[in-house]
């Protein structure tokens, strides 16, 4: 098979540690032993690819999945999926999920005393285009309380799941909204040491994609791990 060009390891401090005590659920679930560093093999530089058959037409629009319109403020969330070297990631699957405008998820375990919306499921997916662009139409999710600590409320967020070209490039993250007053209090948003890395999770209000009389636009780019140019048999370290 020849030599394998590995994907880069994340830059120091730009990814969360597993144990982050302020987020209480990590305490019994984070591994306690150091991870074992391994070279990327064919198994890690390959990964599942999805095609048009895996996509439901129109699933990018979360406001059109039911007979009526969901309650809440309509928004357009769009952006690009790129790698660390700025290369667009075309034809990659993007899945999102979120709560409704009242802050309630359509999920049996969500017991928050806020109304469900019969016109909102909160699931969307799409594929990036040739230029790595994606676009969703949805409603702005509400903030919701959780049991992590006294008076804990999650800032408004949309969950994002992406594959990219390889098993190594997989990412699941959350997109936040600019100016959310709950961000400084949220242990999940604040789990990453690097402040700039955190702030890149906050979408940008985008006048260009805002639709007059219809929906506010937010822009959110997702960056996947880049790839070392030189094939090597040893994992690259920083």
């Amino acid at each position: 098979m020849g030599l394998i060009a590995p994907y880069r390891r994340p830059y120091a401090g730009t990814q969360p540690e597993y144990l982050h005590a302020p987020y209480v659920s990590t305490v019994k679930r984070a591994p306690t032993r150091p991870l074992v560093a391994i070279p990327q093999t064919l198994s890690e530089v390959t990964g599942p690819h999805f095609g048009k058959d895996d996509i439901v037409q129109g699933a990018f629009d979360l406001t059109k999945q039911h007979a009526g319109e969901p309650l809440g403020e309509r928004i357009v969330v769009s952006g690009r999926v790129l790698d660390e070297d700025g290369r667009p990631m075309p034809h990659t699957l993007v899945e999102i999920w979120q709560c409704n405008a009242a802050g309630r998820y359509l999920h049996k375990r969500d017991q928050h005393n806020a109304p469900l919306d019969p016109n909102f499921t909160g699931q969307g997916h799409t594929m990036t285009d040739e230029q790595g662009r994606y676009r969703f139409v949805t409603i702005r999710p509400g903030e919701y309380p959780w049991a992590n600590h006294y008076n804990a409320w999650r800032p408004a967020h949309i969950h994002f799941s992406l594959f990219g070209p390889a098993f190594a490039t997989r990412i699941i993250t959350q997109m936040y909204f600019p100016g959310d007053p709950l961000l400084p209090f949220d242990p999940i948003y604040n789990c990453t040491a690097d402040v700039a890395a955190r702030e890149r999770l906050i979408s940008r209000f985008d006048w260009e994609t805002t639709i007059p009389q219809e929906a506010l636009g937010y822009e959110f780019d997702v960056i996947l791990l880049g790839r070392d140019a030189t094939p090597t048999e040893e994992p690259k370290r920083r």
Partner: protein
Amino acid sequence: MRSLATTWQTVGPYFRIGMERLMVADIAGEGVEGQRIRVQVRVLDGDDVPIPDAVLEVWQANSHGKYAHPEDTQDKPLEQRFRGYGRIGTDDDGWLRFDTVKPGPVPGPGDVDQAPHLVVGLMMRGLLKRLVTRMYFPGEVLNQTDPILMLVEGARRKTLVARAGVEDVKVLTWEIHMQGKDETVFFEL
């Protein structure tokens, strides 16, 4: 200057809303070649309490040891009906089950064959980023020389090898311990 990869965030407890659609527990559908296996996995936290809100992703080669991916240029047969991807959530008792075929060996560093293995990504509430591990098969000769297993201290290798069933060897059981004396080995890529 290059930009830096986006920060991971937890899938949270409600990932099924977005991830249910592509849950795949039957990885090798009808007509796919190879030895059929069923894998049952239990995911346990630091108190050995079953984790009911975890999701596991599987990536594997087909029975010939070929990945359905353009970068696998080996001269081995591809199967149109085999993607090699599974996504399965745990139930209320921390169990998840999937059916597939045993993958063939794929090349590793130095073109030494790796032992048959499933590449595994694990996500859950309380995990701020994915954990990567592998599931190996019991009784494989190649387990003695697998270049990735050799990087794991001897006493911990068993955490990566599934157990064969007593009544049916095609049913494999694998426990994932997040913590404790049997803590599963997790990898940094």
